[in-house]
């Protein structure tokens, strides 16, 4: 019996988002057939897609940004026209640099700031949400600005993802989505387009392929406007292309490098600087249509032949002499099935789900499956679940902040109605949603998430949740839902002896059973 609960913890915590509270019976169901419980979701590939009322496609969202930017511009011009020239004595030279400085401040804040979403969240009333209110100074605070279309969209996308994660049975497919989304990450802090596209990128480029083929996901990702924008490829021009000759701009190798270093071969995967430059040339012209729509529907992926470097290119020793878009697609197809890619993906996958030091035999098995099935990601996931290693390895990985917050929401059976509290807490804990610090995504080791300040902050958040919601639950019931007899004696005793239900809930959320996976 104790053993079954232990296996249920592996099923729910290692592979999923943790047991749901209430009447779900997750732990009991997982105990009776742990592997079946995890794999049940894989049999429902359509369940990976995310559709919610109001979520729009990438071109629609791009057009919304263009329209919003036009509006802002018009409003600014109207204001300028309406305001009579201020004191003429004032030197106009003073104003111009000041305005410019503000603009560049905003631009850089978009690039580096992580708190953009936190502000509106603070100003929104959230009656029942799990929020430790992030204590802003009350005095001298300007009235809350209505959210613009970009902020609204980001929050709607975040909410849809959080609701799905809270409601799904085991959560294995959602964990796969998070894994792949982090592997192929973009950052919303790159700018307005990236922010409005962050959710759509995951829905359109990641989710359809999480149980499909790696090559298809790779192509969908590298042709997605959000990725092209994030890694600057929309600006990259072939030096000998028509546009490159006419304008004074040229190649940008950012995306090409990260495709090989982070998305496929891995660093040390056998490519050179020359290969980076070649691939950068090969994918010149991969862009999205702008607001004028000369190249296509504004905000959609297009191949711009005028920006494409003409002629054959040699990549990893192979010549690609296709014309146009086909050249890059052929290169990506080869990168997807390169042996370095299989190694890199298998090791990263096992490291994420099993242990910081992934068992080599298991990595080798997953690599072989990846090679044999031509990158069938569902087959790889099944092999992982069928392995003994994944069930034998102790639960030593730290839950990431996102996992921790979602698992807490599931246990408390709180389906979020507003994402604000989650977004704030993710910012605080160093994992702002869809905004990793670099194109390599958020870290995936226990060391990164078990840092002193991070744990201290989790405790503060858990205490806030406890204070708000502790009265609604019997903490020992919750422990039963979360771990049953797999809970340690010490954890049980700590919760039993807590001085209040509020404190008991905070301690339960912080217990090793809830923090480790």
């Amino acid at each position, binding site marked *: 019996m104790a053993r079954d609960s232990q296996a249920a913890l592996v099923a729910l915590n290692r592979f999923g988002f943790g047991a749901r509270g209430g009447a779900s019976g997750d732990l009991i169901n997982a105990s009776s057939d742990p592997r079946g419980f995890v794999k049940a979701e894989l049999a429902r590939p359509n369940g990976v897609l995310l559709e919610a009322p109001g979520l729009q496609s990438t071109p629609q969202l791009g057009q919304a940004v263009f329209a919003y930017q036009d509006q802002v511009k018009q409003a600014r011009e109207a204001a300028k026209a309406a305001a009579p020239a201020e004191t003429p004595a004032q030197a106009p030279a003073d104003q111009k640099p000041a305005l410019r400085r503000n603009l560049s401040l905003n631009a850089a*804040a978009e690039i580096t700031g992580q708190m953009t979403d936190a502000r509106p969240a603070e100003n929104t009333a959230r009656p029942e949400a799990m929020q430790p209110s992030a*204590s802003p100074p009350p005095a001298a605070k300007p009235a809350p600005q209505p959210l613009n279309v970009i902020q609204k969209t980001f929050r709607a996308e975040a909410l849809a993802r959080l609701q799905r994660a809270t409601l799904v049975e085991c959560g294995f497919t959602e964990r796969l989505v998070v894994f792949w989304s982090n592997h192929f990450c973009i950052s919303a802090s790159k700018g307005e387009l990236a922010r409005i596209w962050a959710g759509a990128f995951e829905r359109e480029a990641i989710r359809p392929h999480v149980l499909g083929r790696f090559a298809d996901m790779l192509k969908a990702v590298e042709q997605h406007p959000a990725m092209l924008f994030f890694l600057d490829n929309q600006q990259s021009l072939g030096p000998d292309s028509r546009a490159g000759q006419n304008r004074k701009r040229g190649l*940008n190798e950012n995306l090409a490098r990260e495709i090989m270093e982070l998305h496929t071969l891995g660093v040390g995967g056998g490519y050179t600087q020359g290969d980076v430059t070649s691939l950068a040339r090969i994918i010149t012209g991969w862009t999205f249509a702008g607001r004028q729509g000369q190249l296509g529907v504004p905000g959609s992926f297009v191949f711009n032949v005028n920006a494409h470097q003409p002629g054959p290119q040699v990549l990893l020793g192979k010549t690609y002499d296709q014309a146009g878009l086909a050249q890059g697609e052929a290169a990506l197809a080869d990168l997807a099935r390169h042996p370095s890619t299989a190694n890199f993906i298998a090791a990263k996958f096992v490291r994420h789900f099993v242990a910081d030091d992934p068992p080599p035999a298991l990595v080798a098995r997953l690599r072989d499956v990846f090679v044999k099935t031509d990158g069938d990601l569902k087959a790889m996931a099944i092999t992982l679940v069928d392995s003994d290693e994944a069930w034998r390895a102790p639960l030593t990985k730290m839950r990431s902040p996102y996992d921790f917050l979602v698992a807490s929401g599931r246990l408390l059976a709180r389906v979020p109605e507003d994402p604000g509290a989650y977004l704030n807490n993710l910012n605080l804990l160093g994992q702002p949603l869809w905004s990793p610090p670099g194109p390599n995504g958020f870290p995936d080791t226990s060391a990164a998430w078990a840092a002193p300040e991070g744990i201290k902050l989790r405790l503060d958040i858990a205490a806030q949740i406890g204070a708000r919601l502790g009265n609604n639950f019997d903490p020992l019931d919750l422990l039963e839902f979360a771990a049953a007899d797999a809970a340690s004696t010490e954890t049980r005793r700590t919760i039993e002896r807590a001085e209040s239900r509020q404190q008991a809930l905070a301690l339960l959320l912080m217990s090793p059973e809830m923090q480790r996976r």
Partner: protein
Amino acid sequence: MMIDCVENRLLTSRRRLLLGGASFAAWAYLPKLARAADGRDPRLIVVILRGALDGLSTVAPIGDPDYAGLHGSIALAADGAHPAIKLDSFFALHPGMPEFARMYRDGHAAVLHAVATPYRDRSHFDGQDVLESGYAGPGRVQSGWLNRALEALPRGERVSSGLAVGPTTPLVLRGNAPTVGWAPVALPQADDDTAMRLVELYRHRDPALASALSQGLQLDKVASGDDMKATRGNAVAQMRQVARGAAKLMAADDGPRIAALAFDGWDTHANEGGPVGRLAFLLGGLDGALAEFESGLGNRWRDTVVVVATEFGRTARINGTDGTDHGTATVALLAGGAVKGGRVISDWPGLKLANLYEGRDLKPTTDLRSVIKGVLQDQFGLSDRVLAETVFPDSAAVKPVKGLVV
């Protein structure tokens, strides 16, 4: 005895109770106060700029005839609306860094140019690994050079735990020597009793979390004085705020003597900007952080060295999108009252095509490790041997730069 002095100086009641526990290795090393020998009480702050700083835009070789052509639309110039600040007849500082310029003029800041780690490929993540691990090549090393330097300090001379600023510990400060972490937040805190119960549970079930949580608890309140309310918003404010908090912790008599922090966002592939723009904005944030260190450390600034380093530089020639791609050599900056400054130290390789590394990057002529070795030796008296074997393994050929510290 050690514990008594900790209690008196630093800790609230909760912390005093926590110190009864067994898992407080971190605080067993708490401070030796001043160094008896010369009365100095040295401090070291390492600032990692993640993303690869464009050294040629930070300290521009405006005297090099090839610079303006290569750096094109984003090149700095000694004239114009936003002139670069001349450091000597050859180099000029980005105009976004007036505080650093002032420190330089006062002899408390120095620039090392054409500097690189031994890493010669162009991956950020491997480059940061090499920069922070102190090993000659990338690998899955789990400790950083600053931590090993801390570990190498003689027992009696141990200057204290290292302070990791931010929600995660940067690799440079990870390792066996105890570290503590702190990040600025504005969040109601869990009460002492809850925290103690959780520490107790972790001590029985999860020692690693016990140690992490206790350390997190101890540092938090010291840093968060009344002026530490998180001002959210732009990156400049955040950089300043982080520096202010770290300085406050380090200024205490028994505060950490060594700290590491990282600022992100320097990967300027597109629209990098010249005297104004994206990089200018970021450099302004860094400049503000240096000013916060200076004011926050007060009298301790006199004995402080701040080292600013990045994983590698960027291409000498701008790319097709008014930015720069991954390169090789760049600058390292030193600031602090202990710096023998007012100098740009460089064996300048020149920017002629033939002199560029692989025909594209500023060629490295100074190994960053020799700079850091020089600082560690002068500040903490680490021997050549420890530096060459432990702190930067297999680096005997890389000699410390002498005379960086007053």
